[in-house]
């Protein structure tokens, strides 16, 4: 299956979910998303960085300089308490929407 385009707002959710497991830097976030979705979503720098900065401005993640697992210097992102709350709320509503859409699609 070729990589599909991201629904707007979905990327935010994926980033938050990824960071919920621990602090990561940009490349690692992109890798993790690709890995978890088995290559369905391939995140480009042009989508990832604006999303990261928007989330940071909203106070849902916080960035700081540290070391990547490779030992390189990198900007690491951490999910904040507001980010976790947002993730929880969005996950709940996503589940509802996904269920509803699935029901509609399976109707015929």
């Amino acid at each position: 299956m070729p990589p599909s385009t991201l629904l707007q707002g979905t990327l935010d959710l994926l980033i938050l979910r990824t960071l919920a497991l621990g602090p990561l830097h940009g490349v690692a976030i992109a890798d993790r998303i690709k890995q978890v979705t088995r290559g369905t979503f391939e995140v480009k720098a042009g989508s990832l960085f604006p999303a990261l900065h928007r989330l940071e401005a909203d106070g849902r993640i916080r960035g700081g300089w540290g070391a990547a697992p490779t030992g390189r210097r990198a900007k690491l992102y951490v999910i904040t308490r507001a980010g976790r709350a947002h993730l929880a709320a969005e996950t709940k509503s996503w589940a509802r929407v996904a269920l509803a859409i699935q029901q509609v699609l399976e109707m015929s």
Partner: protein
Amino acid sequence: MSFLSRWRARTRTWLRRDVVERDLSRELADWVDELAARYEADGCAPDEARRRALVETGGVEQVKDQVRDARERWMLDRAIERLRFDALTACRSLAATPALTAAVVMTIASAAAINLAMVSLIDRALLSPPPHVVDADRVFTVAMHAPGDTGGLRTTMSYPSFAIVRDQVPAVSAAAYLRDTMSLVIDGDQRRVNAMAVSATYFSLLGARPAIGPGLIAKNDDAAEPAVVLSHALWQSAFGGDPKVVGRRVSIRGVDCEVAGVMPDGFSGHSAVGVDLWLPFAVAFHGNPGWDRDPYRNLLSTVVRLAPGQTLEAAETQATRALGSPTTFDSIVGANVGATERQVAWWLGAVALLIFAIGLANAATLLVVRAARRQEDIVIRTALGASRGRLLAQAIVEAMLVAAAATALALAFAIWLDEPIRRVLFPDVVGRSDLARTTLEAAGISGALAFAICALTAVWQIRGSLPATALSGAARRSGRTRALTALLLLQTALSTVLLSGAGMFGQSLRKLAAQDLGMRMDGVFIVSFEQGPGDVPGRNEILAAALEKVRALPGVELASPIDSLPFTGFNVPPISVPGRAEPPRIGEQLPYLIASTPESLKILGIEIAEGRTFTAADDRGAPVVIVNDTMARVVWPGESAIGKCIRIGFDDDFDPALSVGPPMPSDKVPCRQIVGVAHDVRQRSIVPVDNEAHLMQYFVPFSQVPPPPFPVASWPEIRGLLLRTSTGIETLAPQIRRIVVGRRADLPFVRVAAYTASLDRQLRPWRLGTTLLGLFSALALAVAAMGLYAAFAHVVAERRREMAIRIAIGARPGGVLRLILRESLSTAAAGVVAGNLAAIMCGRWVQSLLFETAPSDPMVLGFAAAVMLTVALAATLVPARSASHADPNILLRV
């Protein structure tokens, strides 16, 4: 300090922006490095690995741009979100005090409305070029000055003189016009119109084109097509805005004309004075041959337009040379508006501005009261963490909402006020057709001022409510109260001055109208032809024939032919008294002749003091006369005038060319016997100055009036019909008009007017003063009432604790009520005294306009004081009652 801190804050954001940019660059560099490292690990050469990494990233600079875009969009979204929140909070906050919010809006709106209406009127009548005139600053009216230093000024000229300006002054193009009231006959019914006869060049000179139809397209003035052009207003009122009006036939001055067009809405020719209809000279002067050749018929006014590249001075010089007398060109802006109206308009404009200033001050006071009520809200929000900036933002949004609502309302008020003020102040100026830009600009300015006042009051209030400045509030309070008291004094005094002024004019008007003029004017009507150029051919026969039919109309009690009555005209023939060398005179004034019938004396209710009145038999009987009291007393002092005789009229062989001095009838003229003495009737002046109340008059039977010393078509002349009716004239007037006009289309408009209307011109200054000062004083009162209410609501709000303590220690609510009312009334009383004193002083300027009324008239001043104090009482009753119910519990809470 505040400047420095602001500067520092700004530099910090700049620095932060730097940090953000640097971070982003580094982060992206790291990202590319890491991708490149992976490609290298996969076996790529370092250069190739780097290239691939960059391709996969999609260009570092592009990503940076995308991040910047995202940040900006985020900031914009947040700003909109904040504004929405502020607006919502502001609306909620305003709605929390609905009465006070409405009061603030209404105060500003009413104070602004009168200003906008005045701006609209003054702009239209005095300051703006008339609408639909192209390059109006190059169009001028023409005035000719008498040679020498006599100061004589002529604004009219003959057609040949106009032709000289048109043809021999190359620096200008010229057009001529003549205003007149005419009778327009539409489907057989007469309609009175303000007509303007124009030369063929008039519309092209102004650059104005009809909205419908071709317009007047004549080439020559003497051979113009019989056609008329309608104003937009006449098209609406007389033709119901019929789009197919062009080509319809109407009749004017006896000429059958085609409607050739309708001018655009608001067009009134070269001046702001309204015109209903335009027609060519050839139609207007129909039946008056020679109008375009006679150099002595100085009837026409001229307008000129400067040719491109020509200066005013050069054109004036050329015109002076061509006409042979000093000629000046004057701007058409404000042309044809009287000097008195001009002055009154500016004065009222100044008063309106003062009312606006006071209205804004009152709005500020109301806002302070409102803020005091909202104090708890502000404290709670501050405690919950709202920053000062958020509170200020909300206050500014609130101020914007209030100012916008007030300005919209003011515009609506102004549109409504415009017409009544125009009718009183500039009755001739064309009505408003649309909102002028100047009015909207003025609305913008007043809105901005209202916003500034509201915002400043709010900011001041929020600063005052913050802990640091709260302590110094007490110190400032006394200063604020003094300013408030001064403001209250000023507005109560202004209201009192305006009220006194209205009272003075009203009292003068009442006393003028209540005078005994020696005759009855109510229920009396005059039927006459509106004057056109020249006489109405066959007028005597038309009116004589109409008289019998009018008399037979149900509702007409009495009818009589008349010549000239007091206040409508005069007839002063030569007079002599046997045995006296000089004619009787008071000052230089000879006695007035009033042509009468038994009916006319009865209609006017003229009282006979001695002797008898006229009878039908006098028409064909011996020459008789009735003199008035003054004449009897002056001519025959100490004895009865009955049985004496006087001679009136010209000798048969009188020749004006040979006579020396004032003519006196010789004993060849029969001596007419005095059969009665009537009480004096006011002859010409509504104000009985000098001898005006006691001029000599005598009454002569209509058929016996002596003829003038030149041949006339028919004698005696009937100039009109005098009626007394028992029903309203509205239903009778069209019937009478139909009777008089019959099927003819060439007659001037038949006026059916109340006799009292002949006093209108003389009464105008008093009516103007009473109406306008009445209107302005009502507005000033409304504003002052709001101010008093606001101020005392403020006082009560500030002294709530004191009131509660008073009640807690046993004061009766009534006592508290009285306390507040006493304070309010003493302030108002001080304002009333100041206002009365000012009125007495200002009254001196208008003393000459007052009739039997002194500026210190106790009735007038008492009336003004009573109205002002009543309003003050009513305005403070509400806050006073709320104070008297102050709950002692608040002592525990606050």
